[in-house]
C-alpha cells in the first residue's frame, strides 16, 4: 500500500549497467516512499547504488524495472525544472561570480532574470553568503563554495533537491557545521531532499527517514523513520535513541 500523499514512490526499482557483454547490477529491488518535505538520507558503502538511485530520480538515467513515480496531485512534479542537484564538489564555474553561478539553472531554464536575481540574492542570504554575491569562487572556502552550490540548486525553486555526498569533501568540523546549516535551510525552504552519504551518523542526524543500501549485491536493506525531535542540534548525537539508530545501520552494513 502506498500512502496517497507520497511525493516519491519507488517500488521494486532495478538498474543494470551493461558494459559490452558484462552486466552489472547496480540496484535491485529498491522500494521506498518519500513524503513531501521529507529529508531522506540514503546511506551505504561505495558501490551500493546510492548515486545511481539519485541519477534515476533526477531523470538522467532510466531504470530497468519496477516503478518510479515522482509527484502527486497536491505536489505536481515537472522533471525538467523541479530537480536541484548538489554534488560532492561544488562545481562552481570559476569564471563566474557567486551570484552568476547561482543563476546558472535559471539561465538554462530561461526564467525571467530580474526575479531570478532577486531570488538568488535571497538564497545567498539564506545559505549564509549574503555579501559574497560579487566574489569569485576562488575567494571562498570549500564550505562556502558548497553553500553557493546549495543556493544554486534552489534558485529555480525545484520541488526536489538531490544531494550526492555534498559534504564528503569537507573537513570534519566544517561538515558538522554544514549539517546544521542544511537542516536550517531545509526547514526554511520546505524542500523535499534526498541526501546520499556514506556517513552513518550524518544520515541519522539529518534524515527524517533513513534508507540503507548494501553493496555486493547492491540491494536495499532497510528503510526506517528517524523519530528524533526537530530542530536538531549536535547534542542529539549523545542521546540514547541516536545510538540505537546508528547501531541499527552499522549492523546492516556488517560492521558490528
Amino acid at each position, binding site marked *: 500500500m502506498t500512502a496517497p500523499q507520497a511525493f516519491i514512490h519507488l517500488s521494486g526499482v532495478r538498474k543494470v549497467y551493461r558494459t559490452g557483454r558484462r552486466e552489472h547490477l547496480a540496484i535491485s529491488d529498491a522500494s521506498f516512499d518519500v513524503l513531501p518535505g521529507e529529508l531522506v538520507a540514503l546511506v551505504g558503502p561505495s558501490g551500493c547504488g546510492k548515486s545511481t538511485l539519485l541519477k534515476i530520480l533526477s531523470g538522467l538515467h532510466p531504470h530497468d524495472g519496477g516503478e518510479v513515480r515522482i509527484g502527486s496531485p497536491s505536489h505536481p512534479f515537472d522533471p525538467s525544472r523541479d*530537480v536541484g542537484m548538489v554534488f560532492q564538489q561544488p562545481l562552481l564555474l570559476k569564471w563566474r561570480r557567486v551570484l552568476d553561478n547561482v543563476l546558472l539553472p535559471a539561465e538554462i531554464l530561461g526564467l525571467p532574470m530580474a526575479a531570478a536575481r532577486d531570488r538568488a540574492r535571497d538564497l545567498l542570504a539564506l545559505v549564509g553568503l549574503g555579501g559574497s554575491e560579487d566574489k569569485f569562487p576562488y575567494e571562498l572556502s570549500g564550505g562556502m563554495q558548497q553553500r553557493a552550490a546549495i543556493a544554486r540548486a534552489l534558485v529555480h525553486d525545484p520541488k526536489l533537491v538531490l544531494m550526492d555526498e555534498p559534504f564528503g569533501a569537507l573537513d570534519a568540523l566544517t561538515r558538522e557545521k554544514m549539517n546544521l546549516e542544511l537542516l536550517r535551510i531545509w526547514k526554511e525552504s520546505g524542500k523535499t531532499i534526498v541526501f546520499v552519504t556514506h556517513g552513518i551518523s550524518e544520515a541519522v542526524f539529518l534524515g527524517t527517514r533513513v534508507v540503507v543500501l548494501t553493496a555486493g549485491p547492491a540491494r536495499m536493506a532497510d528503510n526506517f523513520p528517524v523519530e528524533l525531535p526537530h530542530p536538531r542540534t549536535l547534542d542529539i548525537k549523545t542521546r540514547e535513541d541516536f545510538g540505537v539508530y546508528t547501531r541499527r545501520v552499522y549492523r546492516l552494513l556488517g560492521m558490528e
Partner: protein
Amino acid sequence: MITLDSPAARWTLAVLAHLGLVLVWYLFVELGEVPRFVMPSPQATFATLLDPNYRWWSNIAVTATEIFGGYFLALVVGVLLALVFTWSRTLEAIFLPLLVTLNMIPKVALGPLIIVWFKYGVFPNTLMAFSIAVFPILLTTARGLREIEPDLLDLVRSLRGSRWQIFTKIQLPGALPYIFSGMKVAAILAVAGAIVGEFLGSDRGLGYLMLQVQVTLDTPAMFMAVILITVLGMLLYGIVLLLERLLVVRDARLS
C-alpha cells in the same frame, strides 16, 4: 629592504635587469676590445637605426605582417578546428591522429616546398608562421573543450539544457585558459616560423635583411635586426598576456 610584492617594484627590477644586460654587453665589448664584426657595441648597434639604407620601418612592417598574420590565422583555424572536433566525435577520431602526425613534421622542412608552391614573399612566410603556430592552439583548445566535469554536465542535463547551452555557458568559457596556454606557446613559434621563412626565401623583412648584411659582415645591423625581431615577439606575447588578464579569471589561468 626592497619588497617584491608591489608591481611597481617588480617592473623597476625588470627594467633594471634589462639595462644591466646592456651594460654588461657594453663593458664586455669595450674592455675586451672585441672586434666590431664579432660583437658590436650597444652604441654601434643602436646607431644603425639612424641609417636609412636599412629601411627598418618597411622591414619591420613586413616581418610583423608575417608574424601577426600567421598567428591570427593560426588562432582562427586552430580554434575552429577544435570546435569542429568537439561537435563531431567522428571527425575528431579521423583527423586528430592525422594532425598529431602532421605536427611531427618539422615545419622548417616544409619551407622549400612552400616556396615551390607559393613563390617567395610575405604570403609563404605568413603560411610558415601559421603552420608552426596552429598546432599548439588546436591541440590545447581541443583538450580544453573536452575537460568538462561529468557532474556539471549532469546538472545541466537534469534541467534539459541544450547542447548549445552546455557549449556557450560551460565548455567554451572553461576552455579559455587552455586556449590561452596554447596561444602563448604559439606566439613564440610564430616568430620563429616567420623568420625561418624569410631565411629560406624572401626579398623583404628583418630575416631577409640579416642575410643581406651578413655578406658584408655588418654585425651591428644583424644585432639590431635580432633585437627588433625580439621586440616584435614580446609585443605579440604581451598582447596575449593582456587579453588573458582581461578575459580569464585569475584562478582559472593555467600557468
